[in-house]
């Protein structure tokens, strides 16, 4: 892998699930995605796909992976029609009819229309919708998307979650989605599995439900913060109150200090885990 990514082996073999790649800016999410999709070459390490395939330059493997980056994925002077023409030649499994249908669903217009807007004239959100329509119009087995939700409005994010679900259910457990995101709250509904990254390393991974059992959200009065702090993985607070993430195994002890212990949301879990990683990095 590139020098930015190091350390642990990342084993991702969860078919039929949507996995979120979560990390702060510069954690190595985009680098990892680019390496997986053959956009950036790896300097060391190994990536194996669908069991035993390792050569991302192999067209049969490329055709099985649907990849889309977050910004400027296509040249800015292209229209829906140009994209369809290019995608049709660039991949064996691009479906024009499906593209037209997705464009309609994303309210982008008709790719067969004579007069079309160039990408440069579209808003960032509509550009992203266009990229998504193009990649989803391919019959792939793995979707790898770099920050697909970053420029989408809440409604479009909701639609994206629905589309992920449809994509996963269409082939009855044969498909998977891997996407990086900073919009954890909006994408939680679509996330089954999460991989947390910091400083080029995977620092935590697991099914969201399992992680919610492994960690708890703790908050309480500022007076008891000193007692609770040693048991917590991440901690923020002031004189009046505090909040943070702790391991679920410490729940009884934390409750005995009169703290409130709750099941965290993925967003709260992410903040806690990433904050802890940041603190460790600073040390």
């Amino acid at each position, binding site marked *: 892998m590139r020098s930015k990514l190091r350390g642990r082996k990342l084993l991702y073999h969860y078919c039929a699930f949507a996995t979120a790649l979560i990390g702060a800016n510069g954690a190595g999410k985009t680098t990892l995605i680019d390496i997986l999709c053959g956009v950036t070459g790896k300097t060391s390490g190994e990536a194996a796909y669908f069991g035993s395939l390792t050569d991302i*330059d192999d*067209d049969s493997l490329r055709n099985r992976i649907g990849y889309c980056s977050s910004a*400027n994925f*296509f040249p800015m002077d292209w229209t829906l029609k140009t994209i369809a*023409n*290019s995608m049709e030649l*660039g991949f*064996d499994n691009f479906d024009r009819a499906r593209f037209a249908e997705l464009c309609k669903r994303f309210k982008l217009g008709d790719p067969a229309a004579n007069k079309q807007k160039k990408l440069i004239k579209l808003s960032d959100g509509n550009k992203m919708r266009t990229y998504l329509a193009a990649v989803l119009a391919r019959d792939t087995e793995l979707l790898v998307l770099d920050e697909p939700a970053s420029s989408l409005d809440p409604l479009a994010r909701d639609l994206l979650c629905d589309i992920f679900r449809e994509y996963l259910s269409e082939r009855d457990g044969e498909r998977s989605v891997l996407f990086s995101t900073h919009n954890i709250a909006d994408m939680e509904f679509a996330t089954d599995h999460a991989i947390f990254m910091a400083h080029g390393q995977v620092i935590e991974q697991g099914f969201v439900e399992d992680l919610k059992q492994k960690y708890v959200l703790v908050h309480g009065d500022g007076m008891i913060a000193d007692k609770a702090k040693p048991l917590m993985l991440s901690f923020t607070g002031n004189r009046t109150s505090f909040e943070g993430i702790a391991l679920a195994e410490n729940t009884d002890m934390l409750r005995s200090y009169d703290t409130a212990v709750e099941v965290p949301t993925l967003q709260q879990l992410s903040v806690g885990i990433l904050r802890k990683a940041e603190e460790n990095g600073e040390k």
Partner: protein
Amino acid sequence: MEKNKTSLTMSQAVKIYNGSSLPFLTLQFTCILTVMYVVTIAFFFLMTCAERGFAAAREELFESFMSNMYLAICGGFGVAVVSVQTFEKKLPGGKFFRSVKGGFDTYKKVRTALLLSVIIGICLYIGIIGALNAVVPIMNYGAATCVSVAVFLLLGVGIVNLISVIKNDLARTVLSFMQMFVLSVVGVFIVHITKGELGIVHIIAAILGIVLIPVSHKLMLASYRKRRWNT
């Protein structure tokens, strides 16, 4: 295992990268250069005509090598613009191009197609202006200038390929434009000096161009793959 070899034709590869076919691209290149030349020459001619009359305009523009010079500069500019296109990963479309069928093999086909397109386009452009000159004399030593400019532009294509191994974008672009300008002007001046005679210099330049174009193209592709394709 099938690796990096696709059944895509050069024209299909160009369509993936540019959205248009190879013949269309060549035609577009030729038309842009030709229109640029004709419109500019017509504009200067009409301006001078309005100011100082037909005879003065004719003398200033056509007998002074100005139209010859413009033929060369226009062509040089066109070659440089197409040649500095490198489809970098950081530019719009860069990541898409790296993810399509064939990967680098497709890129190689696109670059080769663009090279052919430039060579054919330059020959067509010079040919059209040469034919125009045969009907309405607009250049001094028209036929010789056309041959000379074509030879030096083709040599320039080879040198631009060599320059493209330079990693610094700004240096590569500036050098490409500068050398195209210098070579095309040299092409015109040689004809001026020899009073319309084509000689040994042209033969050497033509041989150099023929040898340099494929060699430098291979070098350029090898360097691009190693240093820029997926770093």
